[in-house]
C-alpha cells in the first residue's frame, strides 16, 4: 500500500504546469473560446513536442505506453489552467479505446492512427449515440462513434456536424449526423460492450480529474481575491462567513482528490470495482467543482459576475463538465447499486 504518485508523474505534471503558465494563460483561454476552432493547433503541436500526446500510445507506435495514473495529474492541470485542447478526448479516451479493440483487424487502424496522434497530427474524439452532442467534433481528424452498440471509425468527411455550442467555450460539442457502413465498423456490439464500459469509466475519471483542477483554480482565485479585496476597512477574507465557505469548499476538493486518484489506479490495475471507483470519482469531483464555483462567485461578488473577469471561464467549465458523462446523482446511483451488489456478495 503506497498511495502517492511517482516522482516521474509529479515531474510530468510540473512540466505541463510550467508550459500552461506561459502558453495557456487566462487570456489564451479566452482567445481560444473566441476562435473558430475553440482551441489552438499551435499549442497542440507544442503539447506533442512535450510528449503529452503520445502518453497513452504504445512505445512501438511512437508513444510512452503509459496508463491513466500517468495521465490523471495532467488532466487535473488541464482543468486548472483551462487548457482548451481535447486532451481528454484524444489521449484519455480515444487512444485507450483503440487499444482496447479486440483482434488484429484493429491493428491496421492503430498502426495508421496512433503514431500520428503522438506527433500531434491527428486529433480524435469519441461519441455515443445517447449523447446530445459530441465534444470536440469539429476539430477531430477521426471520430470514434458508437451506434446500436457497435463501434465505428468515421472520417470527418463522412459526417455532417450541427454545432451545439456549450457554455464552456472550448468544448464545442456538435450533433454528428453520419451513416454507419461496413467500412466504418470497428467492432460488433458484443465486442464493443466491454470496450464501451471501459470508455465510460475512463470518461468519468478523466472528467473528474479535469474538475479537480477546475475546483482548485476557483478556490485559489477566491482565496486570493478575499485577501486583496477590502470592505468595511478590512480584507473580506478576514470575515468568518468568507473563511468558512472557502474552508468547506476546500474540504470537498481535498477529499475528492484521493477518490479520483484511486479510480485512476483502479483503471490501470483492472480492479474488479473499477466502475464503482470511477463513478465515485466523477460524483465527488463534480460536487467539489460545483460547490467551488458557487463559493468563488459569492466571494467575488458582482465583479465575478462579469464577462471581463476570468472567473467565468472556470465556473462555466465546472457547470459543463459536471454534467458531462453523467452527473453526480447518476453516478451516486451507480455507486449505491454496486455497493449493494458487493455487500450481497458474488452470485
Amino acid at each position: 500500500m503506497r498511495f502517492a504518485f511517482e516522482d516521474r508523474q509529479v515531474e510530468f505534471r510540473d512540466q505541463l504546469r510550467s508550459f500552461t503558465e506561459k502558453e495557456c494563460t487566462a487570456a489564451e483561454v479566452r482567445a481560444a473560446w473566441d476562435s473558430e476552432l475553440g482551441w489552438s493547433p499551435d499549442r497542440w503541436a507544442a503539447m506533442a513536442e512535450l510528449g503529452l500526446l503520445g502518453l497513452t500510445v504504445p512505445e512501438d507506435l511512437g508513444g510512452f505506453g503509459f496508463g491513466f495514473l500517468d495521465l490523471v495529474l495532467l488532466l487535473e492541470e488541464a482543468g486548472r489552467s483551462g487548457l482548451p485542447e481535447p486532451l481528454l478526448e484524444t489521449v484519455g479516451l480515444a487512444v485507450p479505446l483503440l487499444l482496447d479493440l479486440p483482434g488484429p483487424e484493429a491493428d491496421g487502424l492503430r498502426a495508421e492512427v496512433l503514431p500520428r496522434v503522438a506527433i500531434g497530427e491527428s486529433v480524435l474524439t469519441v461519441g455515443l449515440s445517447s449523447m446530445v452532442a459530441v465534444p470536440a467534433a469539429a476539430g477531430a481528424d477521426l471520430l470514434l462513434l458508437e451506434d446500436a452498440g457497435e463501434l465505428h471509425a468515421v472520417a470527418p468527411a463522412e459526417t455532417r456536424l450541427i454545432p451545439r455550442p456549450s457554455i464552456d467555450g472550448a468544448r464545442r460539442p456538435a450533433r454528428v449526423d453520419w451513416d454507419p457502413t461496413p467500412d466504418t465498423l470497428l467492432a460488433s456490439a458484443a465486442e464493443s460492450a466491454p470496450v464501451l464500459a471501459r470508455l465510460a469509466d475512463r470518461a468519468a475519471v478523466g472528467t473528474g480529474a479535469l474538475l479537480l483542477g477546475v475546483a482548485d483554480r476557483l478556490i485559489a482565485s477566491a482565496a486570493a481575491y478575499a485577501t486583496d479585496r477590502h470592505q468595511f476597512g478590512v480584507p473580506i477574507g478576514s470575515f468568518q462567513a468568507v473563511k468558512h465557505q472557502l474552508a468547506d469548499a476546500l474540504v470537498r476538493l481535498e477529499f475528492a482528490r484521493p477518490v479520483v486518484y484511486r479510480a485512476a489506479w483502479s483503471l490501470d490495475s483492472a480492479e474488479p470495482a473499477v466502475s464503482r471507483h470511477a463513478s465515485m470519482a466523477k460524483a465527488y469531483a463534480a460536487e467539489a467543482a460545483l460547490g467551488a464555483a458557487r463559493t468563488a462567485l459569492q466571494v467575488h461578488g458582482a465583479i465575478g459576475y462579469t464577462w471581463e473577469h476570468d472567473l467565468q471561464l472556470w465556473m462555466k467549465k465546472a457547470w459543463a463538465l459536471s454534467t458531462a458523462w453523467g452527473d453526480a446523482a447518476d453516478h451516486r446511483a451507480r455507486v449505491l447499486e454496486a455497493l449493494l451488489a458487493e455487500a450481497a456478495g458474488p452470485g
Partner: protein
Amino acid sequence: MDLRFTPEQDAFRAEVRAWLEANVPSEAKGTGPLPSLDTAEGFAAHRVWEQAMFDARLSVVSWPEEFGGRGAGLLEWLIFEEEYYRAQAPTRVGQNGIFLLAPTIFEFGTPEQQARYLPAMASAREVWCQGWSEPDAGSDLAGIRSRATRKGPEGEGGSWVLSGQKTWASRGAFADWCFGLFRTDPTAERHRGMTYFLIPMDAPGVTVRPIAQLDGETGFAEIFFEDVEVPDDQVLGEVGKGWSVAMATTNSERGLSLRSPARFTEAAGRLLALYAEQALLDPVAAGRSADAVARAAMDAEAYQLNTYWTVTRVLGGTPVGPEASMNKLHWSETDLAIHRCALDLLGPEAELLDADGRPGPWLDGFLFALAGPIYAGTNEIQRNVVAERVLGLPRS
C-alpha cells in the same frame, strides 16, 4: 383569517388577465418576443410595451390615480404580478425606477418632484438606473467616495457639482436618469454627509461604460461623473441625509416590492412541467430529482404565503422591518434551487446554448439566479441583519 380573494379582487384579476392575453407581445400574435433589453432596439420596444400598460393604467396599479395608478392595495398589486408572470409578459424596463426609486419619491419628494418624475417613470418615457455601488463600496455602501461640491449660494436655487464613479447600474447603458448617493460633506464619518441626487444621464460630464455579464449581455454599466452640475431641485430629501433616504429605498428593494412571489411560483410551475416531461422520458433519472423538485416548488409557495402573511400585517399598519432580510435570503436561495434543479433534470443538455449562442431559458435563469445572493446586499450582510436586528445578537 380568510385566504380567499374577494369578488372585487377576482374581477380585477380577470381584467388584468384579459388585458395581458390580448396585449402581451407573443410569437403567436406576431408581436413578440421583444428583442433583448440589452440592445437599443430592444430597450425601445420595451418602452413601447410599458407605455401601453400605462395607457391601460396597469403599469403602476398601486400608485395614486394622479400619477397614473389606480390607488389599488398591496393585494391587488400581488394579483397583478401573479398575472403578469403567468402571462410571461416582458421584463419591465422601468422596474428600477418603479420599485426602487418611486417609494423614496413618495416618501421624501416634494409635490413638484412627484409630479415631475412619477408619471414619466410609470410610462417609461423616462427610464431610471441605480447609481449605488462603487468599485470600492459594494457590500459596504457607507464606503461611498463619489462626491458633490456646492456651487452657488446656500439654500434654494443653487447647484451641486458631482464627480466620481458608480458601477453595477442595471439598465445603465440606455437609461435616461440615474439616482444615487454622493458625499456632500467629506469630513463627516461613514454614514453621514451623503446626499441623494437625481441626475439626467445626458448631462454634460456623464459617461457610461456598459459591462458585459456572465451571459455576454451588457445588463449593467459603470457610470463616470466628471463635474456634472445638478440643480438643487434634483436633490431628493434633505442635504446630508442621503443615507436615511437611501435606506428607505434599500428596504423596498429587499422587502416586498422587487421580488414578487409570482416570479418564483411561475418558475416553479415550469419546473414541475419539466419534471413531468423528463419523468416520461426516463423515470429513474428524473426520480433522482423528485425530492429537490418538491423542495423547490414548496419553497416558492412558502415565499408566496409568507408574502400574503406580511402584506396582511403591513395593511394592518406594521412596517416590514428587518424581516425583509429574511425574504431576501429565502427568495434568492429558492431561485437558485429552482434553476439548479432544472439543470439537473436537463442533464447533458444543461450546458448547451441555443442555436444563436444564447443560454436557453433554464440556463439563463440559472445565471440570473446566481446574482441573487449577491446584489441588493449580499446574503452574508442579510444574515448579519437577521442575527443582529431580529435575533438581537451582539454586533461584531
